[in-house]
């Protein structure tokens, strides 16, 4: 038995059959162009315009690449299908023809762009299948997860139809997927609940999408409590349209007024008296019971007020504007008949009229001591409470044991606790008691118990005991104190003459002879005249120079005098100027003292101070500009002695030549004609004879021969000698300084035009013998006029 491990099918005929089959199929595949695989018929729809903005079908019916429908390319599989070795996809083949879709794919504003953004993996085939027959739909979304949310309308509420089956696209998009007819909404929803829809359409219109915007927020399961206005109580049973009147859009819904009055204003049984905020008393549970928390009002209810009927205060059910003061309600019951004012609450509480409390201490008259236990009527006669006087005497006048001598203010000495003990604080009076005064009996001063008008000066009581016999006046207190007559203290510094220095050591009698104090003169000389070593020369006011400390050292402020001491004068001994101790009449001019020292021998006068200062003779300053010869330019830096030789400062000539000798051959002694003190380099303006032309370049000596610069003649001939047979000495008649080449225009002297032109003669023809000032015509012409 032959061992055979091959599969039984791989026989020669088997392999041949397989190869043959392969060849046949391949041949058929080439011949039939793929229909061999029974792919199903391609779509033959040419396509009709779909409308809709995002439709890619705007070019519907127009052939693409010469093809109007997929059916026309049946069998050409490779137009859509790619070979297995290719990296491109079927979608790449799609956009070869459908270039418009390729553009839309990148544009999120289009349907295709939105879809590609939602799912980048989405390909054409997911929505557009083929091979399903010539008339099968071009779009099949059953396999694709169509992002309806992305396109602006959630389908959360459209998952199942009313019969429980799923929605298909065509249920809503009856004609085209890119458009939507709102009639479909009403058609379906009328079938679901005709009654509801009838009212709904009536109340809110037929433009469903204006409210149901695809967010699924305002659908059947809309929770009104998610809105700002939450529904509670009776509001939950109200029909939508009762509040949402004439609402057509979502904006209308959202802008529905939320205040009570908009809906309930017409039913206000309070006729607007309580304002428009119904909710402050009423709840949505119902109009009644309404609760009014009176304590929320400005007038809170407590005590007996809580049990009062509303109408007792709110007359005629008028709630607003009810007055809050006690008197408005309680005036007619005022047992005080208005005497205590209108504020009942200051004494009474809402717990009842009685007990009433009056805190007398709140009044201006506080009750203390015995006053606390006094019956009200003792002070408030006839139960009159207001206007009761608060002064003591008003009540206590009849009991005044002082018979009015101490005034009407009992409480100055007495207090409310009891009449006695009474205290008088004498220190509260204008006359305070100190020292021995405190032990004196009252009658010692207040004779006959008279207190008022008692004088407070010392002498009124102590005149009889004045051991000074009135010499020291009546004010004992100026020396004595209330501690005792002795020791006495007299503060001389309180007097007009204060004691200082040696004066404090002097015995009183040195000045006050015979114990006479009053009228003692205060000037120095009254006491010290006999000791004046100056013999009265310096006046009677010793204090000008001397102090009370001692006669010496004495200080004299020379600066107080008319001659103030400065500089070296300060250190000079007094006697240098004041000979023989004579101070008065000392002359103040410099010369009196310094004449002997005058180095200038009096040449500069007697006022040394015009040049010297008291700081020292040197340095001296002399303002030369105050003299008749002011110093300018180079003169300011010249030494005095350069001009003032031999210390001679007066009578010096102010001419230049006095100092500046004229150099040999120079231009005179008036240097200033050409030189200045600021510039010795002379500049001379040849003004008398202005130099022009060739003159300006001549050297001075060419004209000014023999060193003479004055009196030189300005005529030409003085310098320019006339050549032989020339035309006179007035060179300028023909020459000028810029041009020596003479030009002579012969004047017309004949009345016949230019002589030279007319005569053709030489100068000498008419001017023989060198005379050019006249011409002799007769040389040529006879005296015959006709010649």
């Amino acid at each position, binding site marked *: 038995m032959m*061992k*055979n*491990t*091959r*599969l*039984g*099918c791989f*026989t020669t*005929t*088997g*392999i*041949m*059959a*397989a190869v*043959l*089959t*392969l060849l046949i*199929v391949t041949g*058929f595949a080439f011949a039939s162009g793929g*229909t*061999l*695989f*029974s*792919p199903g018929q391609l779509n033959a729809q040419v396509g009709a315009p779909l409308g809709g903005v995002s439709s890619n079908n705007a070019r519907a019916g127009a052939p693409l690449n010469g093809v109007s429908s997929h059916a026309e390319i049946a069998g050409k599989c490779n137009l859509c*299908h*790619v*070979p*297995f070795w290719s990296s491109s*996809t*079927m979608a790449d083949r799609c956009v070869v023809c459908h270039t418009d879709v390729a553009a839309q794919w990148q544009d999120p504003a289009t349907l295709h762009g939105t879809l590609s953004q939602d799912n980048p993996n989405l390909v054409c*085939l997911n929505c557009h299948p083929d091979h399903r027959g010539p008339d099968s739909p071009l779009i099949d979304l059953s396999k694709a997860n169509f992002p309806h949310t992305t396109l602006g309308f959630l389908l959360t509420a459209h998952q199942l139809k009313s019969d429980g089956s799923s929605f298909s696209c065509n249920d809503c998009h009856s004609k085209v997927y890119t458009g939507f007819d709102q009639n479909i909404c009403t058609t379906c929803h009328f079938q679901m609940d005709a009654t509801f829809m009838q009212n709904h359409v009536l109340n809110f219109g037929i433009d469903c999408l204006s409210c149901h915007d695809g967010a699924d927020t305002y659908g059947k399961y809309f929770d009104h409590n998610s809105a700002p206005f939450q529904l509670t109580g009776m509001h939950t049973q109200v029909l939508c349209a009762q509040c949402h009147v004439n609402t057509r859009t979502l904006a209308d819904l959202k802008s529905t007024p939320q205040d009570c009055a908009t809906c309930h204003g017409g039913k206000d049984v309070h006729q607007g008296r309580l304002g428009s905020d119904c909710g402050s008393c009423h709840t949505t549970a119902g109009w009644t019971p309404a609760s009014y928390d009176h304590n929320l009002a400005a007038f809170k209810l407590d005590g007996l007020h809580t049990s009062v009927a509303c109408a007792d205060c709110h007359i005629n059910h008028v709630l607003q504007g009810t007055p809050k003061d006690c008197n408005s309600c309680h005036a007619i019951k005022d047992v005080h008949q208005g005497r205590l004012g209108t504020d009942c609450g200051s004494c009474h509480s809402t717990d009842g009229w009685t007990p009433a409390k009056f805190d007398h201490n709140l009044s201006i008259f506080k009750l203390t001591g015995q006053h606390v236990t006094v019956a009200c009527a003792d002070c408030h006669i006839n139960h009159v409470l207001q206007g009761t006087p608060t002064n003591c005497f008003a009540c206590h006048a009849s009991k005044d044991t002082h018979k009015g001598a101490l005034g009407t203010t009992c409480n100055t000495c007495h207090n409310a606790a009891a009449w006695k003990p009474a205290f008088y604080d004498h220190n509260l009076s204008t006359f305070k008691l100190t020292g021995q005064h405190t032990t004196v009996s009252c009658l010692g001063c207040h004779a006959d118990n008279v207190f008022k008008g008692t004088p407070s000066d010392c002498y009124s009581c102590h005149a009889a005991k004045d051991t000074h016999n009135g010499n020291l006046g009546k004010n004992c207190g100026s020396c004595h104190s209330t501690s005792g007559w002795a020791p006495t203290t007299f503060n001389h510094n309180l007097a007009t003459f204060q004691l200082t220095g040696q004066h404090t050591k002097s015995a009183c009698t040195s000045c006050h002879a015979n114990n006479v104090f009053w009228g003692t003169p205060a000037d120095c000389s009254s006491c010290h005249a006999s000791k004046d070593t100056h013999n009265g020369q310096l006046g009677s006011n010793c204090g000008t120079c001397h102090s009370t400390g001692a006669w010496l050292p004495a200080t004299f402020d020379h600066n107080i005098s008319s001659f103030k001491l400065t500089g070296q004068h300060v250190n000079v001994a007094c006697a240098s100027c004041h000979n023989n101790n004579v101070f008065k009449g000392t002359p103040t001019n410099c010369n009196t003292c310094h004449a002997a020292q005058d180095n200038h021998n009096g040449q500069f006068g007697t006022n040394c101070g015009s040049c010297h200062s008291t700081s020292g003779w040197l340095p001296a300053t002399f303002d030369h500009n105050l003299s008749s010869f002011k110093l300018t330019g180079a003169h300011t830096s010249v030494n005095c002695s350069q001009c003032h030789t031999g210390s001679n400062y007066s009578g010096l000539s102010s001419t230049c030549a006095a100092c500046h000798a004229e150099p040999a051959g120079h231009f005179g002694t008036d240097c200033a004609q050409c030189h200045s003190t600021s510039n010795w380099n002379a500049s001379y303006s040849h003004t008398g004879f202005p130099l022009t032309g060739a003159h300006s370049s001549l050297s001075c000596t060419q004209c000014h021969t023999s060193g003479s610069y004055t009196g030189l003649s300005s005529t030409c001939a003085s310098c320019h000698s006339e050549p032989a047979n020339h035309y006179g000495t007035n060179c300028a008649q023909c020459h000028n300084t810029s041009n020596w080449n003479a030009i002579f225009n012969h004047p017309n002297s004949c009345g016949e035009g230019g002589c030279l032109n007319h005569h053709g003669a030489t100068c000498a023809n008419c001017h023989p013998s060198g005379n050019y000032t006249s011409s002799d015509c007769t040389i040529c012409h006879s005296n015959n006029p006709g010649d």
Partner: protein
Amino acid sequence: MTQYSGNRGLWLSFLAAILISAVYAIVVFWTRAIPPAGALFGHLLGILGFILMLMTEILYSIRKRSRSARWGSMASWLQFHIFTGLVGPYLVLLHSSWKFNGLAGATTLLTFLIVISGFIGRYIYTQIPRTLDGVEIETPSGQFQANSLARARWLLAIWHIIHIPIGMALFTAAFIHIGAALYYATLLR
């Protein structure tokens, strides 16, 4: 015994066909449409049918040629071969959704042919006496038997020459069909 085991595959195939038909009928009733070849149920029918048909050929062929590894008797394998060879094509027939054009139609036709051929081969095959293991008995007794054996072997050889090329053509066409379906319908190329 031999007769019983020869009919067992037929009976089981018959039962399986009834069962499959029932499921098919339920699907038809449920969807109110003939299950298309490309949908879930149609695909399932095709894939199962083809796998059974592959097993029909390959498993029996391997067992027949493997004498060292003896998994089950040859008779049992024959019964299995008959079972898969009938049920597989039936599933493929249902997969066709009763359309017989194109390459798929040709494949269905080849399937039909191979089943017919299989039936014929089966009856030729049964003319050859075998052991309980299904191994051919080489030395028959009697001249008639010898003659008829020789005739049966000749018929079987002839049958093989026809049956195997049909099968190969069938599988070649089926593979191309599957490849095309995978390429165009599954990979969507």
